């Protein structure tokens, strides 16, 4: 192979030059493994909604992979579970799939009796132009259950997040105005278990009722009553459109409580949350805040000057990188498929320290040659550990943070970073770097 690290780096952009996501370069035109599909995102979201069904409308291939993904999932009910499909053949592509869909839907109602159905369309449907919004409306009226169309054509978006976002946003159609029950809804937790988080414990201890958790686990009935909440807690960007919709439709305020790393940001979120809830903030929040601030200070000695490449983690990309810069760490490359105005504040903080390279994510093949050139200590995200080790690089494993919200996410990150730095130093000794 003749890929040269220097050539690959030359294709990257400096963060300071990026104004929109279109400025973030894709390192190569031939990608491996490529990004995930929004169809996968939609399936992930429906998985969390009990008694709902997902009907994937697409080619054998799209429908095969979607079903294959759900087979091992208890949430979906395994092979006989609530992910089914309408497979398009050349006749449907030529003459449209409306008739086929209607006939399949009758079978679905007879055999599965779902409480609600998501009709998830794939690339081909969007190209042939079948009107699934209208079909969903017709079916909804005919069978008297909520039927929602979710569009997941990948050629119009970057990755799987729009699939999650559109599915949960579609749920707004099921919600009805109802009296406030002082609960909080948890919006946007796509992975992990909210009940395992610090935020959950804090809310529980304060006697706050947890309402709908979408898409991490809820029922159709809970979605219908979700407008009874006092506050929506948005834990990921995918839920912002739904939160905004619920705010305008039902007047429910929301707190943007992403998986932040900066202790001050987390503390501020807790303050805002309890203010909305009209409850006194528990004292333990302050105690935790002080403890995490101390941990951050203590970690600087180990982490200062440590170089890394950022791939993909459960944290908020630019916020975590800004936080790591504040610890004295040096991002050499940041991979991201997202860049919008909300990121600017964090980007500005990063640029106060360093101007790292930036490129699109999910294309690890060309990065192999970049490692030889930049020689980072750490890689944050998913990669093949053995081949990184051979280059003296340690992976920072952070997937477990999916189960964390609040100060615990920061403490966990610091722990993983210190562990990985020690590993990287050992690898480098082995390689005499």
């Amino acid at each position: 192979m003749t890929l040269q690290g220097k050539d690959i780096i030359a294709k990257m952009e400096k963060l300071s030059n990026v104004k929109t996501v279109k400025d973030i370069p894709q390192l190569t035109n031939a990608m491996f493994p490529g990004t995930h599909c929004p169809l996968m995102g939609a399936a992930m979201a429906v998985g969390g909604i009990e008694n709902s069904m997902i009907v994937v409308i697409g080619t054998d291939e799209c429908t095969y992979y979607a079903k294959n993904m759900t087979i091992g999932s208890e949430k979906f009910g395994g092979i006989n579970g609530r992910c089914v499909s309408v497979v398009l053949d050349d006749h449907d592509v030529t003459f449209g799939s409306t008739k086929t869909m209607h006939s399949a839907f009758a079978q679905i109602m007879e055999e599965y009796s779902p409480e609600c159905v998501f009709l998830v369309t794939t690339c081909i449907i969007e190209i042939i132009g079948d009107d699934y919004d209208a079909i969903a409306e017709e079916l909804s009226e005919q069978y008297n259950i909520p039927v929602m169309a979710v569009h997941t054509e990948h050629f119009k978006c970057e990755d799987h997040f729009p699939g999650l976002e559109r599915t949960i946003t579609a749920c707004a159609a099921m919600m009805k105005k109802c009296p406030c029950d002082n609960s909080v809804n948890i919006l946007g937790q796509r992975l992990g278990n909210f009940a395992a988080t610090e935020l959950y414990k804090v809310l529980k201890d304060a006697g706050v009722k947890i309402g709908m958790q979408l898409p991490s686990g809820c029922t159709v009935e809970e979605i219908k009553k979700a407008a009874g909440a006092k506050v929506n807690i948005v834990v990921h960007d995918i839920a912002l459109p739904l939160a905004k919709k619920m705010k305008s439709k039902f007047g429910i305020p929301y707190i943007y409580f992403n998986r932040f790393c900066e202790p001050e940001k987390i503390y501020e979120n807790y303050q805002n949350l309890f203010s909305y809830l009209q409850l006194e903030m528990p004292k333990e929040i302050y105690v935790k805040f002080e403890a995490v601030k101390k941990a951050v200070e203590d970690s600087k000695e180990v982490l200062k000057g440590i170089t890394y490449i950022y791939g993909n983690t459960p944290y908020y990309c630019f916020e975590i990188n800004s936080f790591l810069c504040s610890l004295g760490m040096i991002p050499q490359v940041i991979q991201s498929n997202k860049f919008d105005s909300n990121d600017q504040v964090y980007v500005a903080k990063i640029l106060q320290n360093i101007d790292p390279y930036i490129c699109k994510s999910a294309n690890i093949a060309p990065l192999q040659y970049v490692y030889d050139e930049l020689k980072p200590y750490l890689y944050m995200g998913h990669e093949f550990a053995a081949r990184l080790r051979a280059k003296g690089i340690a992976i920072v494993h952070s997937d477990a943070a999916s189960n964390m919200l609040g100060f615990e996410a920061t403490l966990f990150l610091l722990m993983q970073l210190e562990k990985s730095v020690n590993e990287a130093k050992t690898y480098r000794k082995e390689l005499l770097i």
Partner: protein
Amino acid sequence: MSLCRFLPNPSDRMAIVWSLLSIKDSLILEYGPAGTTHFSMGLYGSLGVDWKQVLFTTHMDEDDVVMGDVSRLEKAIVELDTNYHPKVIFVLASSISSVIGTDIKGVCNYMQKEVNARLIAFEQGGFRGDYSVGLTEVYKLLVNNLVEANSEKKEGTYNIIGASMGNYRMASDIWEIKNLMKEGFSYTLNTCLCSQTSVDQIKQMAAAELNIVLSFEGLEAAELLLERYNIPYVYMAPYGYRQTLEFLQKVSEIVKKPIHKSLQMRIKGKLNNLAMYKMAGMMGRKPRFNYKAIVKGNYDLVKNMSSYLEEVGITVSDKICSHSTKNIKNISDDIKFYTDERDYLQIVRAARKCLVMGDDVFLEQADNTNIKVRTGFPFIKGSQIATHMPLMGEKGADYILEWIDMYYQM
């Protein structure tokens, strides 16, 4: 099409990809949305084929779709050629590029002069049929495009055609065929379409003395090799002892060498025992019910496995083909392909005290009064690790006989 409750039949395109992934020194470039490629990796991994840095995608955005811009594809081809120096780049259409009418073959034609790698286009976007159609196409295209005429004949060698990694236990079946050919005739494998092969091995297919065709999908490729290079072929997927002997006999006639005696005697012995076993089964243990089987799978498995079961006194009440049968010549009337899932579900869900053979999805639908044997893909429980546990040949017959015995004892 109607509602699909389980896994749909893999498409022609999917079979093409899993076949091409077995060819070393080649790369696959898909001209389509990245998500499909990424999503597919789970399936290919479970089939035992390696996709890491072999399977690439260009991705497609709205501009490519609306404007028909193929510059992304052109650049990706040059990139792969420059960076990886593959001998062949297989350029695959996607469902999107098929529907919008991208001329993949045309792009490959004019890009060929820009690159060193041989460019081979596959225009199947998933709408020409199921995986069986894809397998037929891929074997034929590989033979048409890669096999070289000037290969020096290699005595004592043979090719296997029609070994699809989408078949359950295919790696083991290849292992078994290799053992039978080695022990029976001291012959060694030249090239296998398509498992653990390489571009150079495919180029030298014409050097072999004989082709062994394990599935009907390989017949057209075998005919091409017969016509062009005068290589005779044996078409048989041998299940059971009788068929294994028949298979060896057919090979023997073509290569004009006797089957090694010890192998022949051993299998004949097992075949004789099978007859005694059957009698003992019927006489010693009085039949308590009608011994009946349902077999679902690829055409050759269904046809030949059913014969094996019938040899031991089990009536195969339903022979269900898992793919379209429209391209099969002289198909037996009793082998059916159902386009509507409900038809075969009705059969398997009604089965009681049967020997049920098929894939995991099918077996899941049969109740526990049945003896269930996994013989097909997809498998959804556990994994496929062993490469020495065949369904075909002598060892395969031993294994199936154990299940038959269990069934008789139930």
